[in-house]
C-alpha cells in the first residue's frame, strides 16, 4: 500500500499544467504499471488515479497517442466496475448463503 501511495504521490507532483510531453509520457508509463495493481489490491486509490488521468487530459501538451493510452487505462478501470456489477448480479440470482439463521 505504501509503495502504491508513494508512486501516486510522485505522479501528483508531476502533473502540473506546465508538464512537458516527456513528463506526461513518464506519468502514463507509471500509471500503466500501477493501475492493474491498484485495481486488484488498493481500490481506495482508484479515485486518485482517475483524477490524475483527468488532469493529464486537460494538459495542452498531451498528444492523441497519449490520450489513447489514458483511454486504455480508464477502460481497465471501467472493466473492473463492470466485473463487480456482473458478480453482484450473479450473486443476486444465486441462493443467499450469507443469511444468518
Amino acid at each position, binding site marked *: 500500500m505504501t509503495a502504491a501511495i508513494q508512486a501516486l504521490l510522485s505522479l501528483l507532483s508531476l502533473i502540473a499544467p506546465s508538464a512537458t510531453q516527456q513528463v506526461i509520457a513518464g506519468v502514463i508509463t507509471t500509471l500503466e504499471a500501477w493501475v492493474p495493481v491498484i485495481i486488484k489490491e488498493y*481500490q481506495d486509490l*482508484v*479515485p486518485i488515479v*482517475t*483524477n490524475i488521468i*483527468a488532469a493529464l*487530459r*486537460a494538459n495542452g501538451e498531451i498528444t*492523441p497517442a497519449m*490520450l489513447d493510452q489514458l483511454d486504455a487505462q480508464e477502460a481497465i478501470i*471501467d472493466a473492473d*466496475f463492470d466485473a*463487480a*456489477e456482473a*458478480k*453482484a*448480479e450473479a*450473486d*443476486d440470482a444465486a441462493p*443467499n448463503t*450469507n*443469511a*444468518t439463521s
Partner: protein
Amino acid sequence: MKKILPALALVTLLSGCAALQNLTNDVKTAYQVVTTSAVTPTQADVAINVFDGVKKTTTNYLRLPICGKLPCRQSAATIPIKKAISAGTLARNDIKAFLRANPGANLNIQSVSDLQNATSALQAIIKAYNIN
C-alpha cells in the same frame, strides 16, 4: 364596503396574475437557459468527476455480500445501480469523445444532462440505501 370588496378581490386577482406572469417569465427564462446554454469543458470535466465519484461509491457497494451479515448490500439496489452506471458511463464517454474531437469547445447542455441525470440517480440510490 360592498364596492370595496370586489375591488380588493380584483386587485388580489391582478396581483396573482402578475405573480403568475413573473413565474411564467421565470420558467421561460429557465427553459431558455436550459435549451440554449452551453457547457464549458471545465464544467463538463466537473460533471464527469462527480459521476465517476458516485460510480465508484455504488460499485464498492455492489462488492459487498448480500445482506445477512454486516457489512452487506441490498440486492434490490443492483439493477438500479447498473442501469444508472451504464447510462452515465455511456454519456461520460460521449462527452470525453466530444472534448477530444473539439478541444476547448463548449458542449450543448443537453449532452451533459444525461450524465447529470445518471449522477442524480446514483446519488438518490446512495441516499436510499444509506451507502457510504
